[in-house]
């Protein structure tokens, strides 16, 4: 039985996201980040997004912040690890008060997404107990006594993405998408969402995916679009295909720290309307290098 073919261009896939939508980002820190999708959101000048970082995030949310797309964000850890302990545009947005924060421990994000997945309004968790989270976000977190034994727990309101964006190594045309590395929080982020937008290195026949079903992190029923975008996680890594580009990450952070970020966006985002143009703007050699580990 052939499923619905959802393969479309990145531009079409992202065009369904309205301003003000709640958008969850998959991947983990510098791995499998949906970078091409965030660049396309910037190009389409999305505004007022509520971004849920399903796991620690880096250049993905920072690029959205730098392009003025983000109004609010659920965050637990935003950095580039050794390459940058904080991310410049996101940090500026929070310090200037243009980005509102829902302050989390990763366990609280897990709870919020799990509540959405289960269709319950909230979930009690141990994560965040003792911290200042309910003080700063009382609309999201409340200390709650468990009704059986009276112990304190933290009630976390459901965090339901309108869209979850993930980038994977493979997907079939129906939207069964696979990693061969660590899925981090992608599966939960997809189950919690109304709709999922998959960018993938490669669209493959269904038989390829069905040969290893335990690797599939999506459920095709709620996948709205599949866009084939080779190097769609660059400059972060796509596990099993290419590594992150340390130099490009450092260049990005340097551009964000100075006054050069508008120029960066002009060169690599607004002025590079397709993935091919983006790759040309960086230089093809860089992509070959992260894939092969050497100059080609």
């Amino acid at each position, binding site marked *: 039985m052939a499923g619905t073919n959802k393969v479309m261009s990145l531009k079409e896939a992202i065009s369904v996201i309205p301003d003000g939508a709640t958008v969850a980002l998959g991947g*983990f*820190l*510098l*791995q499998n980040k949906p970078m091409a999708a965030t660049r396309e959101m910037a190009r389409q000048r999305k505004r007022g997004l509520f971004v849920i970082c*399903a*796991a*620690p995030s880096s250049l993905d949310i920072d690029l959205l912040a730098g392009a003025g797309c983000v109004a609010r964000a659920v*965050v*637990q*850890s*935003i*950095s580039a*690890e*050794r390459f940058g*302990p*904080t991310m410049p545009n*996101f*940090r500026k947005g*929070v*310090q*200037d*008060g243009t980005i509102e924060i829902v*302050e*989390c*421990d*990763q*366990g*609280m994000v*897990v709870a919020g*997404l*799990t509540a959405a997945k289960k269709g319950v309004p909230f979930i009690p*968790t*141990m*994560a*965040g*107990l*003792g*911290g*200042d*989270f309910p003080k*700063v976000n009382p609309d999201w977190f409340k200390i709650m006594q468990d009704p059986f034994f009276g*112990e*304190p*727990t933290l009630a976390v309101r459901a965090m339901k993405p309108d869209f979850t964006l993930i980038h994977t190594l493979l997907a079939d045309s129906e939207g069964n998408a696979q990693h*061969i*590395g*660590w*899925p*981090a*929080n992608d*599966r*939960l982020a997809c189950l919690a969402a109304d709709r999922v937008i998959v960018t993938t290195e490669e669209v493959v026949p269904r038989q390829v995916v069905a040969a290893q079903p335990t690797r599939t992190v999506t459920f095709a029923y709620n996948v709205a679009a599949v866009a084939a975008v080779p190097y769609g996680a660059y400059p972060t*890594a796509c*596990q*099993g295909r290419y*590594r*992150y580009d*340390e130099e490009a990450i450092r260049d990005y952070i340097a551009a964000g720290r100075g006054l050069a970020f508008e120029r960066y966006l002009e060169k690599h985002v607004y002025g590079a309307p397709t993935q091919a143009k983006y790759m040309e703007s960086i230089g093809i050699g860089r992509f070959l290098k992260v894939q092969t580990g050497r100059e080609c």
Partner: protein
Amino acid sequence: METPAYTVSELMACVFSRDMQDGERGGIPGVRSEVPLASAGLAVRHHAPNATIFSPSGPVAAEQLVMTGTTTDYERTTGVASMIALDEIFDLIHRGTFDWWFAGGMQIDQYGNINLVGIGDWKRPKLRGPGTAGIASENFVGRILVWINEHSPRMFVKKVDFVSCAGHGPHDRKALGLRGGGPYLVVSPLAVLDFEKKSGRMRLRSVHPGVTVKQVQENTDFELIIPENVPTTPPPSDEEITILRKQVDPLGILREEELYG
């Protein structure tokens, strides 16, 4: 015998390694794991071969306790025998599976409350930090091992601007529902510190070679509990430094200058 030259990060890794007992269960954080990973990698090769160490993606063998570019590099996350997702690792933490886990911080106070969120008013911070990561959840493990990359009055403060991870006071940990042991050991570039049981206040345990007690107190914005005799932190042994450099950190990441802020 000549003491080998070492960096502060290598010394910190040795101090944490010595605290890890054979047979314990511990975990490496998903972000900024350089010192934690090195300590665990050293411990399993030096004296704790039967420790169970979890990375964010599952339990790892010694071969995965080797430092690479970042915490979640492919070879590290896929080297597990059974892969778990991010939600599952937090389930395990909350139900009390672990003897120890690591926490970093941008501010720590006299009770061990830790802040990773920001400096100044939460709504309009002077400096936005990386965020809490998973350190609030660590109040459900036995011992929280805290590494602080800078020992200064702006890091060791009277009161943190945001509590990411609750310490030993002024609150009552039990009333907050915290079942774990809380912050246990704090290692900075100057000293090793712990907490007095009765008062929950931070206590000086040892000063690193070449550092004075006075220097530690001057770089701390609150009054430390200082015992009459403060020993010197034993420097890395030849064996420790050899294991670290040959087997755990062949790229020399701990020998790079630490960057923060």
